[in-house]
């Protein structure tokens, strides 16, 4: 008993730290309707600024607290509301998820750019001294300042917020505003201000959480907040994003169970090395499979959503015959110019970069198919790419299979994993599906990819020339370029054919309305599994292609952050079309390469740029490239119409 207490009690502050974030997530969801993936990033930003002010600029603690928590916290929340989430119609779940993700990806990358990449060694504690032992629980469980601040903060926050939401009129208005801001306005309530208040409140909570819990971790690192966030998401999911108290209790339990298990399990066992780190993800997956409330997350719809104008048509539909001819000819001219340049005068460094971009393009095509065509959001595409690459690598290493043949088998394996994922999440959609795929990606990151048997440890698998003719690829990038071009053309053509064919129509119907699609006889579960399987195969092919280009298959190349970034990047450029994926792939590497010429500090900006781009996704779900194409097409049509005095095409208004 004494031993159990000794293991379990230290778990409580961890659990309370998780609880603080879980409650914050539920609070944000209940008061703004947004599942804020960026919540941890917000907390991290406050903690970072706090530590930076105190350590690097010797500010007094109270001034730093004022600046980083009282001003920055709500300020960030208000900025998120004003410039991002207010512009997204409440029915557009994908836009909300993607905007949250771009914050999660963008903020931690942006902070070092603004404040410099200083090594921040832990923040000072505000209320209690972290190392002082205040009293003992039982006979010999010490309770120090970290312990006390985490527990007290969690309890006070929970009580205050529950009271606020359940008993005050502001709480009532916030909950009503989540369902329909317009209906709330009809009640005479200043709905924009209520939503802004909710965001400011959530921002304040995030900032407080970040600064008060910062001393729990030794250094202020983004990674700590991500681990914390996973446990918090799992707890929030167990509460169906509805009850803050349930979320808090589950979070504490996760902390206690993890630490107790850590104490009892032998350190060399499989359970300790693989299952324990994955424990919060397993809780999350379990919640997603079993909590019925999560299946109905996106069901409560704004009855006044028809006030929003319908989305615009894609640019290709607007093109007249003349412009269509110009665009098509221009495309072939550019393609030949590109291939010609790559094989003749392109400098080797740029050739390498563009080659890599083509491999990314193939992976991105999987996003086009799954998200653009079928409307299913997956946050595990990099993981699927990794599965194929590691399968090919291990087959080559152990069986001596040719790497290219292995790549095909690897793509099959990725396809199977994707299909299994689809089957497991058949009853989820929107946010639920996003969380499920995120959990899968994290599971592979933490428990499977680092395993010696899969990736050969953190160093990864180095490709050997006995697996494929590396010498052919070695002197310059030409051979690889031709291989990548072939694969890319085949995959892009395949996706385009699928989009135009029967399957594509079924998938598009499913994206438009699941109810409507089921009504005309589309087998939704099967189409969904099919979309996932095809997309998994594409991601797998791209992953193997990337591995050949890199000549090393490292787990870091396929982690969940990349999965998030992939989705964000493709949605930014344009998720509906094949060109969108290729533009995203090439764009990613070109931006990265161009930043190499920029000062050292700015080199982390790639993701920030794309995250900024994704923020335009709220206003233009078709992607910025597609938006610009439409604008230019319309301009060109106007010029042509002016010149020929030809009748302009008329559009039909809605009923």
């Amino acid at each position, binding site marked *: 008993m004494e031993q159990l207490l000794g293991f379990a009690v230290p778990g409580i502050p961890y659990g309370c730290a998780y609880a603080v974030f879980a409650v914050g997530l539920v609070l944000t969801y209940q008061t703004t309707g947004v599942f804020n993936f960026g919540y941890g990033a917000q907390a991290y930003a406050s903690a970072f600024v706090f530590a930076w002010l105190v350590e690097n600029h010797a500010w007094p603690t109270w001034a730093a607290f004022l600046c980083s928590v009282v001003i920055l916290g709500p300020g960030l929340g208000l900025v998120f509301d004003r410039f991002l989430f207010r512009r997204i119609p409440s029915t557009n779940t994908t836009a909300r998820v993607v905007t949250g993700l771009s914050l999660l990806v963008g903020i931690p990358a942006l902070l070092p750019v603004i404040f410099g990449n200083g090594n921040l060694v832990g923040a000072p504690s505000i209320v209690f001294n972290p190392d002082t032992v205040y009293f003992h629980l039982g006979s010999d469980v010490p309770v120090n300042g970290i312990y006390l601040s985490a527990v007290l903060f969690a309890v006070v926050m929970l009580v205050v917020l529950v009271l606020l939401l359940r008993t005050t*009129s502001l709480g*009532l*208005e916030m*909950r*009503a505003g*989540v*369902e*329909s801001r*317009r*209906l*709330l*306005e*009809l*009640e*005479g*309530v*200043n*709905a*924009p201000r209520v939503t802004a208040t909710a965001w400011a409140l959530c921002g304040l909570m995030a900032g407080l959480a970040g600064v008060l819990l910062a001393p729990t971790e030794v250094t202020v690192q983004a990674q700590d907040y991500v681990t914390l966030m996973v446990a918090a998401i799992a707890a929030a999911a167990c509460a169906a994003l509805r009850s803050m108290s349930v979320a808090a209790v589950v979070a504490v339990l996760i902390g206690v169970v993890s630490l107790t298990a850590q104490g009892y399990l032998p350190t060399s066992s499989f359970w300790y090395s693989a299952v324990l780190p994955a424990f919060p993800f397993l809780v999350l997956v379990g919640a997603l499979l079993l909590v019925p409330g999560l299946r109905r997350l996106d069901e*409560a719809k704004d*009855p*006044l959503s028809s*006030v*929003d*104008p*319908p989305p*615009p048509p894609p640019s290709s539909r607007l093109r007249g015959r003349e412009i269509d001819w110009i665009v098509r000819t221009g495309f072939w001219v550019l393609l030949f110019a590109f291939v010609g340049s790559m094989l003749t005068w392109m400098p080797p460094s740029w050739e390498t970069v563009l080659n890599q971009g083509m491999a990314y393009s193939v992976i991105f095509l999987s996003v086009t198919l799954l998200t653009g065509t079928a409307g299913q959001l997956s946050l595990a595409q990099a993981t699927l790419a990794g599965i194929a690459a590691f399968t090919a690598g291990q087959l080559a290493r152990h069986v001596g299979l040719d790497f290219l043949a292995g790549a095909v088998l690897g793509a099959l394996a990725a396809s199977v994993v994707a299909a299994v994922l689809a089957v497991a999440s058949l009853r989820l959609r929107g946010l639920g599906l996003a969380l499920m795929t995120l959990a899968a990606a994290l599971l592979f990151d933490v428990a499977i990819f680092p395993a010696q048997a899969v990736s050969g440890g953190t160093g990864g698998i180095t490709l050997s020339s006995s697996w494929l003719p590396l010498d052919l690829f070695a002197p310059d990038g030409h051979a690889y370029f031709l291989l990548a071009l072939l694969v890319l053309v085949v995959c892009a053509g395949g996706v385009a054919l699928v989009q135009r064919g029967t399957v594509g129509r079924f998938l598009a119907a499913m994206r438009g309305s699941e109810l409507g699609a089921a009504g005309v006889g589309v087998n939704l579960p099967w189409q969904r599994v099919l979309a996932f399987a095809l997309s998994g195969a594409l991601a797998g092919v791209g992953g193997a292609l990337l591995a050949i280009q890199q000549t090393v298959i490292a787990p870091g190349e396929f982690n969940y952050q990349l999965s998030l970034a992939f989705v964000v990047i493709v949605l930014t450029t344009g998720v509906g079309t094949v060109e969108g994926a290729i533009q995203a792939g090439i764009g990613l590497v070109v931006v990265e390469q161009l930043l190499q010429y920029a000062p050292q500090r700015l080199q982390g900006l790639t993701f920030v740029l794309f995250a900024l781009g994704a923020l335009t996704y709220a206003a233009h779900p078709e992607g910025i490239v597609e938006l610009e194409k439409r604008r230019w097409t319309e301009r060109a049509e106007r010029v042509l119409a002016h010149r020929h005095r030809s009748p302009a095409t*008329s*559009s*039909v*208004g*809605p*009923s």
Partner: protein
Amino acid sequence: MTRLEPPVLELEAVRAAYGPYRALFGVSFSVDRGAAVALLGPNGAGKSTVARVASGLVRVSSGSVRVDGRDVTGEPAWRIARAGLAHVPEGRGVFDSLSVEENLVLSFRRRAGRGEVSTSLERAYERFPALGQRRHDRAGALSGGQQRLLSLAKVLVAPPKVLIADELSLGLAPSVIDDVYAGLADARRSGTALVVVEQQIDRALALASSAVVLDRGAVVYFGPAQGARAVAEEVVARRHRVEEDAATQVGPGARPPAGREGRT
């Protein structure tokens, strides 16, 4: 008729659009204090858009809207609501995720004042006993008719200057429609001006003193209720003929006209 006080709601040459799709083309009419106006017209004539423009949900692209003599053009919906206009939107006008009581409390705090919430609740449950029985249920769990009653109850306890009711009878059983219309009549007795958007011409004209008939986003009739029936029926019949003609034609020209040209 000489008028000493301004109309309680007045639309003047209002044009409005949903993004690139235009919906109203210069709509003008006014509602006198305590009057009841029926807003009639076939599907897609712009009835709901008129209601949304009046309550500020849809931004006016040109023209003006006045509530109780005050120009509210371009103001946010919550300001217009505070100026005394209540809009019960088409379909569901209640918050699904809140309980019946929370729905009422949310409304009464604003309309009746904080001190009056509990007496207002009592009166609402007295007037609509069905709501009292289900006060702790989620509003989303109510039947369609009960939801419509709830959205009326929110408004009726503290009568607004003007109430716009959008398709209150849609999808309801005749006996429930009677209840809803009894509620509207109550509101009128307590001095509220009514704008009733309705497809059931008889129901609306029985209640209304005057009527507006819309077709393709423009007013084709504005006058006493008695004269409206013939116009409204003619508009609907003409719409049917156009659709039948379009259906019998073959080929690419079979699309009905786009809606902004060729109206009366």
